[in-house]
Each structure stands twice: as structure tokens, then as C-alpha cells.
């Protein structure tokens, strides 16, 4: 059974470049979440999708960050004009429903390093 997959697993980019991070959720899971994990800030919520809609984008740190989800499945997180403070592990999770108490299954993350 396939879990949540993310690609790439590691990404090194130069400051100012754009990056795209991909998440493939578990099939049939309607809810998808992006989180960011860094040493100083711990694990922080970025955005939540229910189907293809994003009812909560409150965690996106700036307008350089955007995300979309298509077909109720794959999601892409895009960071434009990357900065060194964007360096972190970006985690994606999916759950059967977007309600409290439903288990979120996490992918292995994408480690982003901005040089």
C-alpha cells in the first residue's frame, strides 16, 4: 500500500531561484496539509486543502509561497525567489477527512537548502 510520497527528497537551490515541491497523497484522502519543519521553529502549519480548495492558507509565511492541488490528488508547493530562511524540511500529510481527530499520514519530507 502506497503512503504519502514527496519529491524531490532533497533540493539545493541558489538564493533567488524558484522551487517546486511535490506531494502525492494517499489515494482517497480528501484533506492535504503542508507543514514546514526547521530547527528554530519546530513543525509549523502552512496550508490546508480540502479537495482542490484551500480554506486555510494562514500559515504561508509570505506571498512568495503558493500551493495548488489538482484533481483532488497531487499538490505542489511553490516558493519563488527563495531566501536562506526558507531552508527547512517541507512535510506533506494527508487524511481521509479534514476534521480533528482523523489521522494524518506524513510523507518523508523534502529537505530544502537555499545557498
Amino acid at each position, binding site marked *: 500500500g502506497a503512503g*504519502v510520497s514527496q519529491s524531490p527528497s532533497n533540493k539545493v537551490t541558489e538564493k533567488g531561484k524558484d522551487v517546486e515541491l511535490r506531494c502525492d497523497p494517499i489515494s482517497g484522502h480528501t484533506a492535504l496539509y503542508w*507543514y514546514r519543519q526547521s530547527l528554530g521553529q519546530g513543525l509549523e502549519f502552512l496550508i490546508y486543502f480540502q479537495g482542490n480548495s484551500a480554506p486555510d492558507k494562514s500559515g504561508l509565511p509570505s506571498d512568495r509561497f503558493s500551493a495548488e492541488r489538482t484533481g483532488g490528488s497531487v499538490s505542489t508547493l511553490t516558493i519563488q525567489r527563495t531566501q536562506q530562511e526558507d531552508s527547512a524540511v517541507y*512535510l506533506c500529510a494527508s487524511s481521509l477527512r479534514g476534521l*480533528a*481527530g482523523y489521522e494524518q*499520514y506524513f510523507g518523508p519530507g523534502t529537505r530544502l537548502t537555499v545557498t
Partner: protein
Amino acid sequence: TQLLEQSPQFLSIQEGENLTVYCNSSSVFSSLQWYRQEPGEGPVLLVTVVTGGEVKKLKRLTFQFGDARKDSSLHITAAQPGDTGLYLCAASLIAGGTSYGKLTFGQGTILTVHP
């Protein structure tokens, strides 16, 4: 602002010892989850607690949820080297009537169990 205070941040103990990790907030949780994360992987759910005063056991792990649903603890009995990892509490907070699946995480406890 850290809504979930988790302590201690680091714990280094010998095999066979007992330990407790705490997770506290001034906010009421609709549900609280404990995760374990190993290097290079995403967090894996250990337990979800929903009811105030609830106690759940998972082999040598005991999870408690405070009566007021503002705090929780994880107790490990007779720790083993295989318990080594990052332990995270996460909560779905009730804010403005919303209690969907968005998780707020504690800072985490890095547990090292020495043989």
C-alpha cells in the same frame, strides 16, 4: 507565540529507566495527538486522545489527557534504545468554532536511550 509548550526539550536516559514528557497549553484542545519521528522520515502517529481525563496505553507507553483538555503527558516505562527519537505532541485547537484537522505542534522532545 508557541501555543503548545512541550517539555523537556532533551532527555538522555539509560535503558530501563522511566520518563515522562509533558505538553501544555492555555487553549482547549478538541483532540491531541502524539507522534514519533525518526531522522529522514515524517512523524508517525502513536495515539489520539479526545476525551478529558482519558488514559490510553500502547505497550510500555501511557498517554494521559487532562480533565480540562489543555494538557497531556506521555509516560514510557522501562525505556529501550529502540524508543530513541523525536516525540511531538500536536493538537487541533478550538478557535472561533473551527476544529478541523490543522495541527499545532509542540517543539518536540528528543529522547536518547543509552544501552
